[in-house]
């Protein structure tokens, strides 16, 4: 498939089942909401080393937040509910409780509930108070800047992690510029995050390694400096590859995010230096969710 001279490989991204939650962070202004949210979603690029994958989903206006203050919504993904609960409590305690004027609320409704402020309340040392409004319990914890307000629980839902696509370009600046264009477009899609720095990852991995202790290692087939040394997937004119990884609450959310991201790159055309769009998979044997690039992009073509 060719879109605006850029080749879309006939391949698919392979993704996995995850558990996810959404938290709404509000503060006196957006600046402090972002400080809290950036801290909470820091060091959360991959479940491999961080426990969770997290990111800022979008900004929220004062009419969209429970307390009428500006805020942002955060999505957090983990391989299991236990890890998700533990990571959420740790990050709430160290990043939101500590951030001036910040408050936290449930951002998703479901039968499965996980603790948001339920245990955090004990920081109040007996001075904490709870309030029940419209069936939801909130905790007010006295802190030095006033009160920290936090909903008791938030919802936990089944989700998908690991949607991805690869940008193959003639230079590193070209690949990065195309990735940035894609991320800008993908940020507008709800229910997804791109957890890596700036939404982009340069160190895509393959399963396994020559070293026994490593269960993942560099994806040598897509490393441009190894074109002559390993079984490469790259043509002679490709000098740089960037990957965008997407976690989302549903299959359609991720597919739509991939579609607008790839479409944004294709709009740049041949002058961008992008030659191909591909995707990472494990032969289809590990992940139950397959995002086929041709199927996804045929919607744009249509």
């Amino acid at each position: 498939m060719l879109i605006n001279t850029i080749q879309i490989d006939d391949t698919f991204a392979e993704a996995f089942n995850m558990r996810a939650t959404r938290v709404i962070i509000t503060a006196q202004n957006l600046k402090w909401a972002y400080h809290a949210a950036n801290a909470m979603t820091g060091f959360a690029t991959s479940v491999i080393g961080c426990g969770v994958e997290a990111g800022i989903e979008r900004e929220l206006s004062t009419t969209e937040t429970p307390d009428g203050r500006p805020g942002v919504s955060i999505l957090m993904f983990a391989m299991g509910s236990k890890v998700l609960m533990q990571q959420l409590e740790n990050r709430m305690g160290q990043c939101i409780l500590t951030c001036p004027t910040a408050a936290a609320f449930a951002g998703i409704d479901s039968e499965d509930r996980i603790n948001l402020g339920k245990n955090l309340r004990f920081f109040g040392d007996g001075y904490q108070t709870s309030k029940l409004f419209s069936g939801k319990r909130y905790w007010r914890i006295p802190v030095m800047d006033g009160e920290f307000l936090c909903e008791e629980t938030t919802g936990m839902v089944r989700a998908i992690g690991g949607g991805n696509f690869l940008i193959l370009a003639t230079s590193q600046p070209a690949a990065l510029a195309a990735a940035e264009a894609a991320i800008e477009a993908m940020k507008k899609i709800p229910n997804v995050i791109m957890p890596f720095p700036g939404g982009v990852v340069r160190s895509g991995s393959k399963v396994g390694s020559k070293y026994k202790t490593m269960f993942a290692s560099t994806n040598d087939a897509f490393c441009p400096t190894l074109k002559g040394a390993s079984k490469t997937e790259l043509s002679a004119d490709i000098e740089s590859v960037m990957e965008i990884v997407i976690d989302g609450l549903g299959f359609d959310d991720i597919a739509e995010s991939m579609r607008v991201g790839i479409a944004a790159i294709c709009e740049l055309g041949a002058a961008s230096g992008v030659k191909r769009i591909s995707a990472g998979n494990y032969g289809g044997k590990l992940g139950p969710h397959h995002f086929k690039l041709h199927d996804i992009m045929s919607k744009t073509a249509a």
Partner: protein
Amino acid sequence: MTTLTFSLKKHLDFAVNCAALTPNNLAEKTLAEIAGILLVYGKQHIRLDAVFDVAQDNVSDNASDSAIDNTPDVIVKHSSDKLDYLGAHLTAGRMDIEGDAGAFLGFNLKQGEIHCHGNSLAFAACNMLGGLLHIHGNTGDFLGGASAGLRKGMRGGTVLVTGDAGDRAGDQMRRGLILIEGNAGDYCASRMIAGTIGVLGHVGRYAGYNMKRGTLLLTQTPQLHATIQDCGMHTLPFLSLMYQSFAQFDTKFTALTSQRVQRFVGDAACNGNGEILLIAA
């Protein structure tokens, strides 16, 4: 929806226990069975139809033979303050009381709505667990309190009072919301364990007496006793959530917007952590 109307037809010298008039007690009964319900009147039992005229909407010729198939709405007309326990143990449906109500209005109310379009005597919303009780007039002492011997009063639901409340409103209240648009008497929120009480008018002396937890929201400066301690002026963001929760009710409290309050904490006499929030003008 079936509506049953009970019209009081005689002057009452003594109180009548009207717990049997609660909608969930009347479901699946025929009009004849309802008319034959025995009510406690003073020291004696009398038939319901000796006190009330009973009517059912959409009545047919054989209405007295057919059972009411669901929980009916109930209207009590010409009601008086001799009618105790109106709406007691209500679990579903709606009661409208057109006139005054006696003591223990909405006793142990679990779900559903009671609207009293007059005044009520003491112990309204006693032991209440859920639902809505709206008193459009004044109410007596121990609003939302506990019945004798119990250590916890109201444990859920919402009480709206358009007029004034007597002494000890919210005594031993454990959970729920009481909003009083008029004045409240002495010892408001006494021995309060949790929940929220709002008063737009004046409160009497000893507000928050032996208060352990919970919130008393005021708009007029109270005369507080020595063991309620001033914690200063603060902006509390949680108040926006509280005000939003008022929006579902027909009350003047929906006009509140200020998150700026003077916070008092107590009662220190019982090591309490309750709060009295005085909304800044």
